[in-house]
């Protein structure tokens, strides 16, 4: 089954793909530099730290000397990443050697950050103004609920009681690859849609935000500003209220969309209104996996719902439901990892979380669909007539051995001049005499030149004799064409 993957491309990849000028402007913000530093591979981080206070270009060979031969691939990966993000500036010095230097803007911002610390452009509001501030658990519950609501609305608008304020055009953008709509039917999840649902919350968040940002250009919003605001948001403190007036107009328009996604919570006081970042927001720049329970979304396909109570759903994983799921492109591994990740805390303590009989059965049912394996074969027709006659007058079992893996497959031919061949070694047995002939054929798989003149026939039920000339070099190949390969006929 072809695996269709949604690549929840990392935020940083998107940042890396921005044009150079915009990237330099982004690096003036200390927080973005910090977020980018944290996203680098470990060796990359080390190189940045080492070159942080060095103003002179450093020879690439010198950097290579720091690494042992084992780590050379990691070194290359780190350097490529650094150059791609324009953190390292590549140059060629007078001796035509490659040198690297830290991007000056990046360098300055990071040095500032180290010595002076980063300051957010806004301070949390004093607690006497902010009343009814939710505590951390409430905030997390709120964020999760908003996110679930959003996901539900994404998949099917009819299931949601109160739809969020995201405009329908924006929803359509998000749904672009996840749903397929046929004319009169309700929109149905595509394969990529299923993959999306089974991903972790963080990966899903990335996907949605990536679509949001790539769509922002069309709406006339500057992607760089959007990215810098998102990254800045990730350094705010969870649970603290920040005044909405401290945001620019542009940011204010974004914050409403973010509230619908569950990244911030908007609250209004008597005179002022504020926003509170949630955990989803602060995890924006770190790749953390957050497992949340998604009870209703995988509704019809993996299991069949038996009972539905207000806080409990009982379902049965049956063969039919799984076949349905497999047809939609979900693999057994995905189902099993979904079950593991979303297990109830009490079940999660047990090892193994999912009982072995369940996982084995799911895998067995998946392999049911893989019973027939198809391999490439050639189909030959219209042989010269004498050979046709030869073939058609008896049952020939054509054994074809594939040289690579030694499996044998065969097909019977009957009254037709076609046989399934594959370039390789072909051995043909006459079934009844196979046992007897084996003892005769001490060099059983010698190459035979199957020329009609070599074959003598008797009737079907009697023995037939075949004289054959041993294979000498490539002579026979030329006569029958290369694609037939070489073959032998055993009696």
């Amino acid at each position, binding site marked *: 089954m072809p695996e269709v993957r949604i690549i929840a491309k990392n935020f940083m990849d998107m940042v890396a793909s921005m044009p150079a000028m915009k990237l330099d402007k982004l690096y003036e913000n200390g927080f973005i530099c910090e977020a980018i530093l944290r996203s680098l591979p*470990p060796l990359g981080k*080390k190189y940045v730290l080492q070159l942080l206070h060095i103003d002179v270009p450093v020879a690439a060979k010198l950097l290579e000397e720091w*690494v042992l031969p084992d780590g050379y691939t990691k070194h290359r990966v780190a350097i490529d990443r650094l150059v791609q993000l324009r953190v390292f500036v590549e140059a060629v010095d007078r001796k035509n050697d490659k040198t690297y230097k830290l991007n000056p803007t990046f360098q300055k911002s990071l040095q500032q*950050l180290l010595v002076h*610390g980063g300051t957010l452009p806004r301070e949390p509001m004093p607690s006497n103004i902010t009343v009814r501030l939710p505590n951390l658990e409430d905030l997390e519950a709120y964020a999760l609920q908003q996110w679930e609501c959003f996901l539900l609305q994404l998949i099917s608008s009819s299931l949601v009681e109160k739809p969020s304020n995201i405009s329908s055009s924006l929803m359509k953008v998000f749904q672009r690859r996840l749903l397929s709509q046929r004319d009169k039917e309700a929109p149905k999840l595509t394969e990529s849609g299923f993959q999306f649902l089974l991903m972790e919350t963080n990966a899903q968040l990335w996907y949605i935000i990536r679509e949001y940002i790539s769509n922002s250009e069309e709406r006339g919003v500057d992607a760089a500003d959007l990215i810098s605001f998102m990254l800045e948001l990730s350094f705010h403190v969870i649970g603290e209220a920040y005044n909405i007036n401290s945001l620019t107009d542009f940011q204010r328009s974004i914050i409403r969309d973010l509230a619908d996604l569950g990244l911030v919570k908007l609250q209004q006081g008597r005179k002022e209104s504020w926003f509170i970042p949630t955990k989803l927001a602060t995890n924006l720049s770190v790749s953390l996996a957050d497992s949340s329970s998604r009870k209703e979304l995988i509704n019809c396909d993996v299991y069949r719902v038996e009972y539905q109570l207000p806080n409990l759903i009982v379902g049965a994983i049956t063969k039919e439901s799984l076949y349905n799921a497999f047809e939609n492109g979900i693999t057994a591994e995905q189902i099993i990892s979904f079950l593991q990740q979303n297990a109830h805390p009490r079940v999660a303590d047990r090892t193994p979380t999912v009982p072995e009989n369940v996982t084995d059965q799911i895998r067995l049912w998946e392999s049911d669909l893989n019973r027939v394996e198809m391999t490439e074969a050639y189909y030959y027709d219209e042989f010269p007539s004498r050979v046709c006659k030869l073939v058609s007058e008896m049952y020939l079992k054509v054994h074809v051995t594939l040289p690579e893996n030694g499996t044998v497959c065969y097909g019977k031919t009957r009254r037709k001049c076609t046989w399934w061949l594959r370039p390789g070694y072909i051995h043909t047995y006459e079934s009844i005499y196979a046992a007897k002939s084996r003892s005769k054929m001490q060099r059983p798989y010698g190459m035979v030149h199957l020329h009609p003149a070599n074959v003598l026939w008797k009737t079907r039920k009697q023995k037939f004799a075949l004289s054959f000339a041993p294979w000498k070099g490539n002579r026979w190949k030329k006569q029958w064409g290369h694609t037939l390969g070489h073959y032998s006929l055993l009696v």
Partner: protein
Amino acid sequence: MPSAPSKLYSDDVSLLVVTLDTNPFFWSTFSFPFSEFLSHVLAFLNSILLLSQLNQVVVIATGCNSCTYLYDSSSDKNHGSTTGSMPSLYSDLLHNLEVFLAGDQQLAKPRVNAAGGGAPPPSLLSGSLSMALCYIQRAFRSGPIHPQPRILCLQGSADGPEQYVAIMNSIFSAQHSTVPIDSCYIGSNNSAFLQQASYITGGIYYRPPHLDGLFQYFSTVFATDLHSRAFLRLPKSVGVDFRASCFCHKQTIDMGYVCSVCLSIFCEHHDKCSTCGSVFGQAQSNVPSSTDRKRKA
């Protein structure tokens, strides 16, 4: 099968416990001022915290008479807000350091004055190493996934021979828990204890030649996390001073008596082992054995 796999920690998340030598006797006579040293150290600690959201830094001060925790990045007691002039790490640490130094001075016993002149009293490295190891044990027990811990000793004052046994014990327990002890020694001669510590636990011992560029040495050598150390060229110690100290007088000796039960080392003959209490037999002095050899020859 892993239950609820959560890749919270990448390979390079580390818990760095730094033991900072604050011995006032050493620093008052040293050429490099403590304030500059501290600024390099603080910038280095900040850079460690910058590298990953999950990195943790703990600073322990090594005084003459006591040790204390100066700063713990994961604790909730970090009050210092990030003002425009310096990060909260700095203000917290400096405040705690002042409090500690005042308290340490008060604990100074009068015996220091009685000794009069001579070598400056050593800092309590054994105490701070033990505190570091206790903290790391707590981190190990906090759950199945935790940052990789390591200890960095910033030491300037000379070794105190009376701490030999305690330091060796903490070195062996660090080796047992696979916690590398890196040491950055800025004093005049090489410190035997720290060399042994780094050698036995698999850490790095380094004596920076130029103290002006201390931050650079820190970020090049000591900022590497344990995962990356497998494929980086780091300074290797050339010669390690493995000489032991005797248990009775705490002097380093080359030849001595060893108890066969508990392996404690003595420089002169005793009747009874002071550590395990086993009784020794008759003394065999060196002189007859050499004359025996002469006779045999």
